[in-house]
C-alpha cells in the first residue's frame, strides 16, 4: 500500500540509506513507496515475480538479467536496502562528488561500479571473464529469433577479436572498459 510510505520507514534508516547510496531524502521516500507498491505479498521483500509484474520490464529483452542483478548470490528475496543499493548504481554522478577525497570508500555510482554492473549483465557465472558463450547468450536475448546462429556467431567472434588484447578469447573487465570507451559513456547515459 503506497500510502503508508513514510510512516514505516524510520528516520535513522533513511539517513543510513542516504549515506550509503547518495539518494536524497525525498528520493528515498519516493522509492520506498514504489517498493511497497511492488510488494504484493506485503512481507517487506520483493521476489522475482514482483519485478516481472511490471509490463515495461517484462518486455525488455534483458529483463531477466536486470532482475537478477538485484538478487544476491543464490537468494530469492530482496529487501529495501538491497533494492536501493542496486538502484544506486544508476544515480547520475554529481559535480560535487567528482572532487571527493580519494581515500574515502568508493560511492556506489562511481564509474567503475557502473561498469561492473554492466559487465555482470554479461558475465553470468561471475568468473570475471565474458566468454564467447556468455556473449552469445546476451546477443540472443537482444535479437530474439531474427538473426541466425551463424550470423550471430560471427558478430560474437568479431567483437571478441577486437576487444581481446591478451589472446585468451575472453573479455576481461579491463578489456571491457577499453572496448566500449566507456569513460565518457557513463556520464552521458547513466
Amino acid at each position, binding site marked *: 500500500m503506497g500510502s503508508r510510505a513514510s510512516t514505516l520507514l524510520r528516520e535513522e534508516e533513511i539517513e543510513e540509506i542516504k549515506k550509503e547510496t547518495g539518494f536524497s531524502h525525498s528520493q528515498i521516500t519516493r522509492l520506498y513507496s514504489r517498493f511497497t507498491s511492488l510488494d504484493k505479498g506485503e512481507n517487506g521483500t520483493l521476489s522475482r515475480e514482483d519485478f516481472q509484474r511490471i509490463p*515495461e520490464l*517484462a518486455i525488455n529483452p534483458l529483463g531477466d538479467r536486470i532482475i537478477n542483478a538485484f538478487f544476491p548470490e543464490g537468494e530469492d528475496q530482496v529487501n529495501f536496502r538491497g533494492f536501493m543499493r542496486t538502484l544506486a548504481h544508476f544515480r547520475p554522478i554529481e559535480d560535487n562528488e567528482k572532487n571527493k577525497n580519494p581515500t574515502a570508500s568508493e560511492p556506489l555510482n562511481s564509474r567503475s561500479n557502473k561498469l561492473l554492473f554492466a559487465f555482470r549483465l554479461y558475465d553470468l557465472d561471475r568468473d570475471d571473464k565474458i566468454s564467447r558463450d556468455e556473449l552469445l547468450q546476451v546477443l540472443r536475448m537482444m535479437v*530474439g529469433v531474427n538473426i541466425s546462429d551463424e550470423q550471430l556467431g560471427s558478430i560474437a567472434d568479431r567483437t571478441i577479436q577486437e576487444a581481446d588484447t591478451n589472446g585468451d578469447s575472453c573479455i576481461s573487465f579491463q578489456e571491457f572498459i577499453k572496448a566500449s570507451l566507456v569513460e565518457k559513456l557513463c556520464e552521458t547515459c547513466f
Partner: protein
Amino acid sequence: MELFFNPFDNLLCILLGISFTVWFTLLLVFIIVPAIFGVSFGIRRLYMKTLLKIFEWATLRIERGAKEKNHHLYKPYSNAIIAREPTSLEEEIKEIRRSGSNKDLDSASEFEMSDIFYFARRGVESIMDDEVTKRFSAEELESWNLLTRSNNNFTYISLRLTVLWGLGLLIRYGFLLPLRVTLAFTGVGLLVFLTSVIGLLPNGRMKNFLSEKVHLMCYRICVRALTAIITYHDSENKPKNGGICVANHTSPIDVIILASDGCYAMVGQIHGGLMGVIQRSMVKACPHVWFERSEVKDRHLVAKRLSDHVQDKSKLPILIFPEGTCINNTSVMMFKKGSFEIGATVYPVAIKYDPRFGDAFWNSSKFGMVSYLLRMMSSWAIVCSVWYLPPMSREEGEDAVQFANRVKAAIARQGGLVDLLWDGGLKREKVKDTFKEEQQKLYSKMLRPSWTPLTT
C-alpha cells in the same frame, strides 16, 4: 413507583416519535422529492465549498507543523524521480555508440558491447517508475482530505487537526453513513418494485415513458445516496437511440452517474444475488442486454445481440465500458474493439472524478463490492465531471482498432487523462510475448540492416 415511570416513558416515546417524523420529513423534502423531479437545492455544492476550505486549512497546518519539526513531507508528484524524454530505440543506441566510440558511425553499425546500456537503463527506469502498474491502485493526493486512508504524513498532526479529524469521523460514520444507507435502500427498493409494476403494462409509449421516469428517479435517489456532486458538460451531445455510449471506467458508480442524466440500455453479465434481482426486474420495464455467463465467451453472439439492439431505433442507446476493467482515473487504457466493430454511431463520454473528496476507484483485488460501497458512503462526497463528446463514426479505410484508439484519444484529451496503449487486463494477466519480440526485431534491424531478418 409505576406512576413515576409512566410519564417519563411517555415523554421519551413522544420525543422519539417527533424526531423520527422530523427526520423523515426532512429526508423527503430535501432529498427524495427533488430527486423525483430532477431539481436541486444546491445544498451539496455548498457542502463541497465548505469542505474545500477546511482541506486547504488542514494542508497548511500540516506543512507548518512539518516545518517546525524540520521534517520532510511526502509529496507524490513534486518529486519526479526520472527525467525521461521520448526517443526511439534506434536513436538512443546510436547516441550511446556515438558518445563512446571514435569510429565512423556508418562502419560501426554492427554490434557494440555498450548496446546493453540502453536496455539496462530502460529496465531500471521501469523498475523505478512505470506507466502501467500505478494505474491499478488509488491515486496519491497532494493535500490531505481528513480521511485516514489517504494520509501519508500521519505523524505531523497538531491537536486542532486531530480534533477536526475526529469530528469528521463522527460526522461521516454517525450521520452521513446511516443517511446514505437509508437512501440507498430506498432507491434500490423503489427501482425493483416500480420496474416490476411497470413490467405488467402492455408495450407501448406509456410504458416507455413511465419506465424512463422511474429509472431516472431511482438513479437520482442513488446519486444522493452517495452524495455525488456531478457537473454535466455539453449535454447537447447526449447519446441518442440506436447509438453506443462509451466511457472510461473507474468504478461501478459510473453507471449510476451516467444513468441519472439519461436513459441507457445496460450491457452485462447476469449475476446472482441482489444484483441479479435488480437486473431481472429492470429488464421487465425496458430492454437491457443481459448475457448468461456461458454466452459471454461467444464473441459472435455478443456482437449479434448488440447490433440487433442498435438497429432497432425504438430501443435506448447502449452503455459500454470498453476498457473491460476499472482503472484508477488517471489514465485511459486500451479499448476492446468489440463495440467498435458493430458500425453504429459512437457517443464518447469522459468521466473525471475529483480525488480530493473521496477516491472512487474500485480496486477489486483489494476490496469486495460491499466494502467498496461502504467506503464510498463514508467518504465526504463523490465529485465528478462528465463531458459528452460529439458523436463519432468509423471512417473509410479505418479498422476497428484505429477507430477505438481515436475515440480513446478524444476521451483522454477531454478528461485530462493519460492515453495509454497498454491493456487494462494487465491488472491480472501477464503481458504478451509479442511486445518483447517487437523490441528484439527493432534491435536486430540495427545490426547490419542489409541482412534480411529470419522472420518478417
